[in-house]
C-alpha cells in the first residue's frame, strides 16, 4: 500500500471513480495538461482524455452552471474552482440552483455534482488565495459541504461526494495538501458523509475542528495531555449538514467545548455548533463555550498571515479558558 499525500489521495479517488464510472467528468481552469495549479488532476487528462478532463474558459459561474446542466442530464461532473476565493461568481448557481433543483422539481431532477476548491491559508499565497468560506455554503440549503483533514479521509470522502446524488462543495485544505503522507488503500471504498470522525478520545474537553485546523487542534491536544488534560478531538469532516449527535455526546461527557476554525469568527460555523450545544446540552456545560477562530478581517497578505490564523498557542489558550471555570 502506497503512502500518499492528501492531494495524491484526491487524485487517486478521482481516477478510481473515472475508471469505474464513465459518467464522471472533471472540469475547471487548468485541470487538463497542467493537472491543476496544485496538481490535483495531474495525469487525469492523459489517462481519460480531453473529453473527460476538460479545460474550461476562465469563468466560475460558467463552470458551476454548466456542471449543473451536465449533472441533470446523467453526468457526474467534478468541477474544480482554482481557489475558494474565486468561487463567489458561482455562488448564485450554487445557492439558487444546485441546492434547489431537486426540491424545486419535487425530485424530478437532481444534481450529482462535486465542486472542489482549495481552501484556507498558511501557504504564503497572494490575496484571495487563502479564504475559508465554508460557513457560507453551510448556510445554503440543499448542498453538502465536506472538508477532509487527512489523506485517508480525503480519499474516502471524495469518493462518497462523487457518488452522492446531491451537490457537494468539497473544500480542500491547501496547507495539508503535502504536509503528511499516509497509507491509503486504493480500493474505491467511500467514507460516510453523515458523520463526524472522533480522532482522539478524551474526557475533559471536547475540541471540534475541521480542515487544516485539525493539525493545530491535535497538537494542542497532545500538549494538554502532557499537563494531564484529556482532550477529545472531533473532526467535523462533513461540515454541513452537521452530525450533531457525536458532538453532543462528547460534550455531555466532557462538559467543556472549544471550537477551532480558521474562518472569521462572526457567523462562522463555530457559532452554529456552539448554538446547537447551548440549546441541546446547556446543562452539561461546565464552562463557557469558546471559539478559537480567525479574526473578522480578510485573511491578510502573507506577512501577517500567521498572526491571523489560530495558532497552537491560541488553541491552548482557549482550552485553558474552559478549564478555568
Amino acid at each position, binding site marked *: 500500500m502506497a503512502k500518499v499525500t492528501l492531494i495524491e489521495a484526491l487524485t487517486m479517488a478521482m481516477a478510481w471513480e473515472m475508471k469505474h464510472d464513465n459518467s464522471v*467528468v472533471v472540469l475547471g481552469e487548468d485541470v487538463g495538461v497542467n493537472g491543476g495549479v496544485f496538481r490535483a488532476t495531474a495525469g487525469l487528462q492523459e489517462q481519460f482524455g480531453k*473529453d473527460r478532463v476538460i479545460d*474550461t*474558459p476562465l*469563468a466560475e*459561474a*460558467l463552470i*458551476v*452552471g*454548466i*456542471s*449543473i*446542466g*451536465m*449533472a*441533470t*442530464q*446523467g*453526468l457526474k*461532473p467534478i468541477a474544480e474552482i482554482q481557489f475558494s476565493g474565486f468561487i463567489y461568481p458561482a455562488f*448564485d*448557481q450554487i445557492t*439558487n*440552483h444546485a441546492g434547489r*433543483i*431537486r*426540491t*424545486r*422539481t*419535487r*425530485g*424530478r*431532477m*437532481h444534481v450529482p455534482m462535486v465542486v472542489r476548491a482549495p481552501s484556507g491559508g498558511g501557504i504564503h499565497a497572494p490575496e484571495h488565495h487563502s479564504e475559508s468560506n465554508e460557513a457560507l455554503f453551510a448556510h445554503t*440549503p*440543499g448542498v*453538502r459541504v465536506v472538508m477532509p483533514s487527512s489523506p485517508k479521509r480525503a480519499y474516502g470522502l471524495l469518493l462518497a461526494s462523487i457518488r*452522492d*446524488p*446531491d451537490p457537494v462543495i468539497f473544500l480542500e485544505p491547501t496547507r495539508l495538501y503535502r504536509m503528511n503522507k499516509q497509507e491509503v488503500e486504493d480500493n474505491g471504498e467511500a467514507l460516510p*458523509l*453523515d458523520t463526524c470522525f472522533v480522532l482522539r478520545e478524551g474526557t475533559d474537553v471536547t475540541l471540534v475542528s475541521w480542515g487544516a485546523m485539525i493539525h493545530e487542534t491535535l497538537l494542542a491536544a497532545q500538549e494538554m495531555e502532557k499537563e494531564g488534560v484529556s482532550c477529545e478531538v472531533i473532526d467535523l469532516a462533513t461540515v454541513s*449538514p*452537521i*452530525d*450533531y*449527535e457525536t458532538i453532543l455526546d462528547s460534550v455531555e461527557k466532557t462538559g467543556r467545548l472549544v471550537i477551532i476554525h480558521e474562518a472569521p469568527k462572526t457567523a462562522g460555523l463555530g457559532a452554529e455548533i456552539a448554538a446547537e450545544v447551548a440549546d441541546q446540552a446547556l446543562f452539561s456545560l461546565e464552562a463557557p463555550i469558546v471559539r478559537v477562530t480567525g479574526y473578522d478581517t480578510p485573511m491578510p497578505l502573507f506577512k501577517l498571515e500567521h498572526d491571523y490564523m489560530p495558532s497552537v498557542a491560541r488553541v491552548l489558550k482557549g482550552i485553558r479558558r474552559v478549564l478555568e471555570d
Partner: protein
Amino acid sequence: MKTVAKFEIKYLQYLDPDGKPVQKTLPKFAQDVNELVEMYKKMSFVRVFDAKAIALQRTGQLGTYASCLGHEAIHVGIGLAMIPEDVFCPMYREYGAQFERGVQPHEVLLFWGGDERGNNFSGPKHDFPWAVPIATQNHHATGAAFALKYQGKKAASVSVIGDGGTSQGDFYESLNCAGAWKLPTVFVIANNKWAISVPLEIQTACETLAQKAIAGGFEGIQVDGNDIIAMRDAMEKALDKARNGGGPTLIEALTYRLSDHTTADDARRYRKEEEVQENWAKEPLIRLRKYLESLGAWDDAKEEAWKAECAARVDEEVQKYKAAGKPPVESMFDHMFANMPEDLLKQREQAIEEAKHHG
C-alpha cells in the same frame, strides 16, 4: 489600417405584419396549409390560456403571473422545432414552447399558484423548470449540450433569454463556451423591447442583439419573432446544424411585450400607450390568420369554434389546478436530499407538528 475580421447580421422574415409573404418560397412545413392552421391554433390556444391566467390572478386565484402576450410565435415556433430528446431551458414565460413539449397548462398554473408540483411537470423529464434568476438558464443549456454531445445523442439544448437578460454576464460566458466547444445548443433572445420598465436603448448600445454572438465566435441572426414561419424555420435550421455537429446559433427574435411585465407590474407608468398600439398591429396571430384567410383556410366561424374549444380545455385545466389544493407541509423537506440528514428530519417533524396546530 488593415481589416482583420468582418461580420454581418442577417434578418429573416417570411410573412409581413399584413400576412403577405415577403419571400418567393416558404419553408416546406409552411407550404402545407393544414400545418399552418395547426400552428395558428396552437398560438391561439396559448393566448386563451394566458388571458385566463391573468383573470385568475386578478380574482385572487393565482399568484403573480408572467404573461406571454405577443410572444406566441416565438414560443410555439421553438416548441415545434424541438424533438423530445432536446433539452429545453426556459426563462419564465415560454408556455407555448412547453405545451408543445407536453407540459400541461394546469402545471403552469400550479407554478404561479405557489406550488412546486408545477415544476414536476409532464413532458420530457430532462427539461428544466422555469428559471427566475435571469441568465442562469444559459449555463444549464450549455452544460446540457455538453452532456448530449458527450453521450453521443443527436439532440440539442435550447435556452431562451430576454433582451434585458443579455446584459447579464452569464449569458456571454455561455455564448463563449458554447462557441469554443462547438456545442449543440441554440440561444434564443426574445427581444420584446422592454425589461420591466427599462427599454432596449437603456439596456445596450447595440443596434442588434444578434451581434452578441460575434463575441462568442459563432453565427447570430435576427428573426421576425412575430412571424411564426420565420421563427420555426430559423429554429429548425439552427437545431439541425446543432444536432449535426455545426455548433451553436444565436437567434434574436424581435417581438413586443404587449402585456405588463407580470401581473405585479403596471406598464402604463413607464411606456406610452401609442407604442403598445403600434405593436398590436404587428402581433403574431393576426398576420398568420390573414394569410390563412387569404388561402381560404380560416374564417370567423372557425375562429369562434376554436376559441370555444380552447376555453373549454383551459377551464378543465383550471379545475385540475384548483383541485390540487395545498401540498403537504413535509414536501418542503422530502426532496431536499436523496439521503436525508438527521437534523432536517427533526425539522420536518417540527413543521408537521406546527401545521397540525395552525392548519
